[in-house]
């Protein structure tokens, strides 16, 4: 798998012409960068020394790229030595590196507890949520890269637009033709049915599955495991009713829908919420077949 850097021949010439007006600021910034780099090197050297003396240090190799910063336009790996503490996650190590060595190290993160879905990354060759990946479980040096099969914006941040578009392509909202009469009356749902859709509702939109999927890599229009799972979440919800289910099956049966899946299980393997994505896709295939037979 490869990490994709967006084409940027035009962009780089643009960034070169722009700063002319602010040349003084540019000089100051360049000077500042030099000093910051020196300081970084000094601290890094200190940590490297510590690392030699003390085994309780983690070595991170982190992918770096910034389309507008000289020296970062060519992707590279930076090494950070982080003092290990019990329970340290990859996210903890990244935050330490950023706050101690290099404040320009960039990655998305927010909740720290595997529910916001911001920090899916490629860690030692696998799609992981950085916040729930223990350093102690990883071989060193720990290699941290942005998610494969997505355009890199900067460092570990990828463009999520395509993923969001696919999620929104499956009419990802509840629909029904009949509500109960009373204003304060809820729709009934059996425990069994709630149980059936439960795992599918746990998706946190991290896009680890999409990144791991070979089919999605080759077919940009493929809905992908997360979006199909979203369709499953509604298609299997008895509250929507048969008529809506019909429509949902048509959506997932489109050319770039469920039939593209070749059941390689890579999505299921990487899902941080343990959603049986491949099973859900298979079940929708079966539903679609049953449905087609019904009208045959």
């Amino acid at each position, binding site marked *: 798998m490869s990490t994709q850097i967006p084409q940027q021949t035009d962009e780089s010439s643009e960034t070169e012409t722009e700063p002319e007006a602010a040349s003084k600021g540019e000089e100051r910034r360049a000077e500042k960068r030099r000093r910051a780099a020196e300081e970084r090197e000094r601290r890094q050297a200190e940590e490297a020394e510590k690392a030699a003396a003390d085994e309780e240090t983690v070595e991170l190799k982190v992918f770096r790229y910034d389309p507008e910063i000289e020296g970062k336009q060519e992707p590279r790996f930076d090494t950070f030595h982080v003092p290990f503490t019990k*329970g340290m996650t990859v996210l903890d190590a990244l935050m330490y590196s950023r706050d101690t060595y290099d*404040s320009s190290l960039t990655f998305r993160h927010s909740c720290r507890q595997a529910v916001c879905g911001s920090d899916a990354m490629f860690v030692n060759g696998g799609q992981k949520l950085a916040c729930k990946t223990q350093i102690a479980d990883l071989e060193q040096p720990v290699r941290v890269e942005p998610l494969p099969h997505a355009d890199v914006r900067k460092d570990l941040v990828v463009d999520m637009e395509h993923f969001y578009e696919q999620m929104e392509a499956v009419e990802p909202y509840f629909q029904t033709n009949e509500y109960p009469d009373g204003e304060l009356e809820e729709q009934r749902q059996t425990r069994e049915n709630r149980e059936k859709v439960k795992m599918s509702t746990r998706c946190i939109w991290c896009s680890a599955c999409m990144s791991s999927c070979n089919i999605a890599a080759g077919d940009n229009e493929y809905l992908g495991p997360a979006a199909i799972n979203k369709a499953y979440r509604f298609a299997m919800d008895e509250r929507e009713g048969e008529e809506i289910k019909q429509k949902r099956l048509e959506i997932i049966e489109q050319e770039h829908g469920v039939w593209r899946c070749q059941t390689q299980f890579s999505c299921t393997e990487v899902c941080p919420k343990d959603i049986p994505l491949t099973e859900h896709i298979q079940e929708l295939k079966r539903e679609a077949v049953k449905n087609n037979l019904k009208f045959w």
Partner: protein
Amino acid sequence: MYEHDVIVVGAGGAGLRAAIAAQEAGADVAMVSKLHPVRSHTGAAEGGINAALRDADSWEDHAYDTMKGSDYLGDAPAVEALCRESPEEVIRLEHWGMPFSREDDGRVSQRPFGGLSFPRTTYAGAETGHQMLHTMYEQVVKRGITVYDEWHVMDLAVTDEDDPADRTCHGVVGYDIQTGEVSGFRAENGVILATGGMGQVFDHTTNAVANTGDGVAMAYRAGVPMEDMEFIQFHPTTLPSTGVLISEGVRGEGGILYNSEGERFMFEHGYANNDGELASRDVVSRAELTEVNEGRGIEDEYVHLDMRHLGEERILDRLENILHLAEDFEGADGLTEPMPVKPGQHYAMGGIETNEHGETVIDGLYAAGECACASVHGANRLGGNALPELIVFGKRAGRHAAGEDMGEAEIETGRSGDWEPADYEFEVEVGETGGRGPAAADGGAVATDADGVLAAAVDRAQERVETLLARSGRNHAEIRSKVQKTMTDNVNVFREEPGLKETLSDLREAREEYQDVAVSDPSRTFNTDLIHTMETRNILDIAEALTMGALARREFRGAHWRKENQIRDDENWLKHTLVSWNDGEPELWYKPVILEGENKEYEPKNRSY
């Protein structure tokens, strides 16, 4: 420049609900959020939504419980609105497809929660917030509401009259995190702040890294009073190493707290002889810390929360998420061993002063959700009352901002009615370094029309970005951690005068250091160094207002405990604390609590559980 009728800042539960309501009321609405909506911290809420849905229950009982839980610092008109409207809002979520946990008859389940006289906490496993957030975002997608995600709102565009009550908000200034573009967002009708919590003011918190109280600080500097900021909820069951929340649902289902002696201390040491583990959150947090302080903690730090006796089936059915959290973030298996827990910052009861329609004292500026203070939680929020607040007050603010006539509000904002100045002298200087600056709103004195006010705000924001990027100086991270440390050391569950004073002077020092702050990443692309640096300013302003309130209030009420006066002192303190920025020279003042409800007066009673 972008133009809409209503601009909603923040896209968690309150923001999403506000946007949907404003659109339904006919407004062209847009959301501006530094995170994509599904990344919002509403998604981390676990326990549930209180709503009087059943015949044996009533919204009046819910209101009574909430007033008692608030230690009589909630305002009755807001509390009653919350309790009256929560049932229809919960059913609306169900109609939008939210996957609630169910009873055998197919109706939504409800469970007991702390401080409630009826099991009225509606839930979806131990992931209620996640399901609520996604359900509402689905509705936003369905309605095609515009979302500017990964735009950090830097400031409000507000006119600069001397009296905040005469000011008008015309929009916000956003910074596009992806490209570095600074742009104005003009709001024809109103701006709704829904930026959530401010947990990053502390270092052990259940809140997300993004919860830096941006909206609260922005409103404060624009002249809106901060209300009851000293009331911070410390949740009794957070994981010691990370602050990750273990839901009150565990105790609601029957989980038990033990100290190092194996004693069920809530009963055995008499903290809450009736309700035990299900006493109000402030009561349980103080009990845990008392146990630790008296040498009965485990590893001198935490206590045990045991749910093994509930059995695997029940745990998997109702609390499965808790097993994952304890395993992933503390290495504990909740099925076979007790889980270590200790109190952690969880929720801010105080915030932007609003009335029950979500209006602030500034015309055209609204707030809803955790960033706002209507006030429904008073001195202590009951578990399960945060999520209904998001949907009820999100909806109300959205409708009002869209121009719907909701009648005269009963809660007055700003210095109107029976307000009184505080006679407290702070020993250290507070507020803007170097004293009173230009009017916070600073319309540049010349700009009076809406577009001019917005353009001036954009220019100031642009200049600030350029300055931070160009100069060299101190990194914000050490300042931020200094603030978090002093707040956690001294403005925690137990508070006393010397510690609070120490924190106020630590904050002064941090403010002065912030004068030299600079951003070393020169990039315009996804510059999180810049964003975090701006957030740290917000953290500073909030921490100071909070500590000012904590110092002045010499009594013990709800979540606020003072060593010097360990009783609830209704004679002197049955009133709200307010802090006004006053263009850089903060002022403390008070206003009365409204205990008069629609049909009854809530008589302050002894709050025992």
